[in-house]
């Protein structure tokens, strides 16, 4: 999986948990919470969906890694690839 593909997967999850948001113009390098109405429970939803859909565990200490699409891709892509392998 490439980092771009990983960003796409994260965006798909966000589309489900924040269905009122326009996600067509989310900037990769800007914090998600600065662009979208996401609260702490929404971030836990993202973590839960990653766990459910892809079997990837994001420990609490690593939550800051999901701040933006870029940081999410940086953090998650190796995990996706190791799960696939």
């Amino acid at each position: 999986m490439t980092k771009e593909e990983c960003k796409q997967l994260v965006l798909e999850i966000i589309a489900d948990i924040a269905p009122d948001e326009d996600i067509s113009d989310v900037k990769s390098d800007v914090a998600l919470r600065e662009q979208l109405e996401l609260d702490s429970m929404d971030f836990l939803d993202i973590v839960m969906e990653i766990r459910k859909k892809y079997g990837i565990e994001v420990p609490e200490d690593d939550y800051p890694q999901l701040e933006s699409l870029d940081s999410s891709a940086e953090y998650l892509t190796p995990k996706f690839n190791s799960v696939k392998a």
Partner: protein
Amino acid sequence: MLDDRIVITGIGLTAPNGNTLAEFRKNLVEGVARIQMLDRRYIGPVAAGVCDYDARKYQTRKEIRKGTRAGSIAIYCAREAVANCGIDWDKVDESRVGIYLGITEHGNVETENEVFNISQYEYDTRFWSHHHNPRTVANNPAGEVSMNMHITGPHYTIGAACAAGNAGLIQGLQMLRLGDVDFALGGGVSESIHTFGIFAGFKSQGALAHHEDPNKASRPFDVARNGIVVSEGGCIYTLERLDDAKKRGATIIAEIVGYALNSDAKDAVLPDPGQQSKCILASIERAGLSPSDIDIVSTHATATPQGDIHECQALREVFKDCPDTYINNTKSFIGHAMGAAGALELAGNIPSFEDGIVHPSINIDQLDEQCQLPNLVINEPKKLPEVNTILNNSFGMLGINSSLVIKRFTED
């Protein structure tokens, strides 16, 4: 000195056969029931009352996803009531508004969903939702209204089994009289059809209705009645002290003049007609009236074989010398809306103050002799010269009884 007179100034509701009071009332007068078969996990098809209000009218998609059905119903009803009462909401001090909602139960739906959810993951509790606790706290439906409408006054629910709809109204009235709030949202809500447990529980108890035509499944007082049709729904009233309502030029729908709550203290499910009649009488006495002053009695009867007989005993005792008192039932149209039942059943009768019509109790093909009541309005509406008073009964498990008396508003 606070004005002790408390009036209803707005009504918002959703019932299986109507999403406004006008639509609900029209169907009650015209004899239109709306019950359908619903396929529930584990138990299969059951007769149920389902609401089709537009949740998106007042909620974002995210609010709907994160919240509960009871919360969504409550938000719809509260906002409809506020719109109906004509108040300029921007000028309302939100810290002086109270939300008091009756519930039969809350949290079973969400808990069952989560147990089912983790069953898909070999019962690994890492998959249990972080939304579970905010969804299942008992104040959830009232709390969702508070957040949606930015109401910063008190909000809580009143658990009173199926007497809860009346209890929500009574709580609102009391808080206005105490001066704790200046504007109250009181009533009841229910989401119970979204869990199998309530159906299975009634079935095990021998109290779940069944009929090949779902619209005929809820048949209080009929000899062939065989139990309860569970429904969802909600009904919330805006309540104000009379002088506040008059000051802002509100249209006054009715005045709450009497109420009573008591307990059987006997049996978890079998009602006690003696305590019920005491409750009914106490509400009438508190209103400064006598039984013969009551024009309409809206019964609680749920169509269980024993429950209906017991309520009829209580009613015969209280209204034995009341040739002008007429009696009806709403569950025959919409099933049993649990925490919402009392509030909804009262609302459906309120337009009688305007049109003088008593809506009927339907689905009575053969009246059970033990449910004979003077002036039971059967299958066809009854036109009266005038309706000035309505008494609304709501009783619940663990022997909780409630009666509410409202009057057409007059200045004196």
